[in-house]
């Protein structure tokens, strides 16, 4: 029995509308057709751009299907027809698009999965601000929140990701010349999304995203002919750092979080915060207040604060660290123990023993003055 090979997936990544993704996709499709391949357009969004429209006219276009939604007729990609037609290479624009209700899938990238599973190669396009993990930071940078997002795994699983790069200045020239939006929309676009600082930031994000993607594949041993089974989402976890800061609702936790966050920024690694509290323990007003402040800090930094209850903090921390794939634990330098507690193995040592391969870093407290000052 013949095993159907999965199609080859190539994504053209842009920094903003008008960066030339669709045009570049058509150009590569044209070269493929010249080389004798069977190419068809499953869906294309030309946005009325004359150059793109005239280029697309030379290709076979699989007609869209009309879908009624709340009294509005929407024209969507005809997935069953694409699968029936089964070209060698299918072009599907804007993979982050949300389909009309009632179709096979909610999102277009899920339609693309079906096409790839049918053994059809796919070229697709997307702008970097649609990436789920970047949504918040791009909204912060640009002041515009994108509603249609797609999971990062889609990009990681693509066989090829091509960055369609353009300088912000050149993009603005194209906008002003009317090559991106009609003339009546240009002024609004220039005043909102298409600001030079936005575009510069988005370009940087797109370049970094591509570099990260390449890095993940390189470090996970990905080679050109390998398919998605070799590049799972776990591969990124395996090669990257994952930080976990152990906090308690005390004022000195703020500094620990700041230090951990800066380390996570330098390492481009995710950071989680963990507080293991005694079971059924009641918090004092001071602790409640400190916890509220820590939540605010965690929220603004975009890190997750996990609160667990356990009798044995070391065991619970080890369990959470394993679940998260932690490679680096940061904790405050413990207070000197008193009495019989001195006989206990220190927490840092217990963690180092129970989590081989995980680094444990003690962050010193600034509020502890040197001994000579105390005297």
């Amino acid at each position, binding site marked *: 029995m013949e095993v159907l090979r999965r199609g080859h997936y190539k994504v053209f990544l842009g920094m903003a509308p008008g960066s030339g993704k669709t045009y570049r996709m058509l150009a590569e499709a044209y070269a493929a057709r010249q080389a004798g391949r069977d190419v068809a357009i499953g869906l294309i969004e030309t946005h009325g751009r004359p150059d793109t429209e005239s280029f697309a006219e030379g290709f076979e276009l699989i007609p869209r299907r009309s879908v009624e939604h709340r009294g509005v007729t929407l024209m969507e990609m005809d997935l069953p027809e694409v699968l029936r037609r089964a070209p060698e290479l299918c072009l599907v624009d804007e993979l982050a698009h949300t389909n009309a209700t009632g179709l096979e899938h909610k999102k277009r990238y899920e339609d693309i999965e079906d096409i790839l599973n049918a053994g059809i190669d796919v070229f697709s396009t997307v702008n970097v601000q649609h990436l789920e993990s970047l949504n918040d*930071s791009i*909204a912060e*940078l640009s002041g515009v929140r994108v509603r249609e997002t797609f999971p990062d795994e889609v990009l990681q699983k693509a066989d090829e990701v091509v960055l369609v790069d353009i300088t912000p200045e050149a993009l603005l020239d194209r906008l002003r010349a009317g090559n991106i939006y009609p003339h009546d929309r240009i002024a609004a676009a220039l005043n909102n999304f298409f600001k030079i600082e936005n575009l510069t930031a988005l370009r940087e994000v797109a370049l970094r995203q591509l570099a990260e993607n390449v890095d993940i594949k390189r470090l996970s041993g990905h080679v050109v002919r390998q398919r998605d089974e070799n590049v799972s989402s776990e591969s990124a976890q395996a090669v990257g750092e994952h930080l976990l800061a152990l906090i308690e609702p005390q*004022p000195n936790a*703020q500094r620990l979080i700041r230090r951990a966050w800066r380390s996570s920024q330098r390492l481009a690694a995710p950071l989680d915060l963990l507080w293991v509290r005694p079971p059924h323990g009641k918090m004092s007003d001071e602790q409640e207040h400190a916890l509220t402040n820590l939540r605010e800090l965690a929220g603004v930094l975009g890190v997750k604060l996990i609160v667990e209850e356990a009798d044995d903090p070391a065991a619970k921390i080890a369990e959470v660290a394993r679940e998260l794939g932690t490679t680096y634990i940061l904790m405050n330098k413990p207070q*000197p123990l*008193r009495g019989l507690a*001195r006989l206990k193995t220190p927490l840092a040592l217990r963690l180092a023993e129970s989590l081989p391969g995980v680094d444990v870093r003690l962050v010193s407290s600034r509020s502890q003055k040197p001994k000579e000052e105390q005297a």
Partner: protein
Amino acid sequence: MIAVWIIAGILVGSLLGYWLPPHGHLPRRDRPRPVRSILVPFSGESISRRAFDAAVRLAKAENAVIIPAFLIIVPSELSLEAALPTRCTEGMGVLEAIEQRAVSQGVQVESRVMRGRAYRHALQRLLEEESFDRIIVSADDVHGGLKTDDVNWLLAKAPTEVLVLRPAPEDERRVSAEGFVGKTS
């Protein structure tokens, strides 16, 4: 008999070892505790060195803890609870620098971060959540202080004493993520 004395000595020693804190520290409950808090809000990549120095002087005199608060404006397109890591990059550095400098001068620091639709809104939220004994603010929004409108609002609404430092040429001297910056003459 000697054995009994040895055992008794060990027992007494163990009990003392248990009850006495290590390294000659005073028990926590007996240590002098800060009784006052001084809020030092800032909005940018640095704070005025004068505001910092004033806070340290007062904190030393009053055995107070300095509470530097980094105020962040959340754009209206985002939820008030949105993560703003990009804006935090400088602010976290400033908090770190303030803590480092203040602690080296023997003053305790507890930092805060507060989001709002405007600096005034962030301040309002902060004041609703917590009470402070004094607020020190620089009326120099160029160097991380607050605008006149916000200072006026603070003077009118803050349920505590407000010390406003008017803009001065010395405000070129600042505390930023790089530590103390600006001329020191």
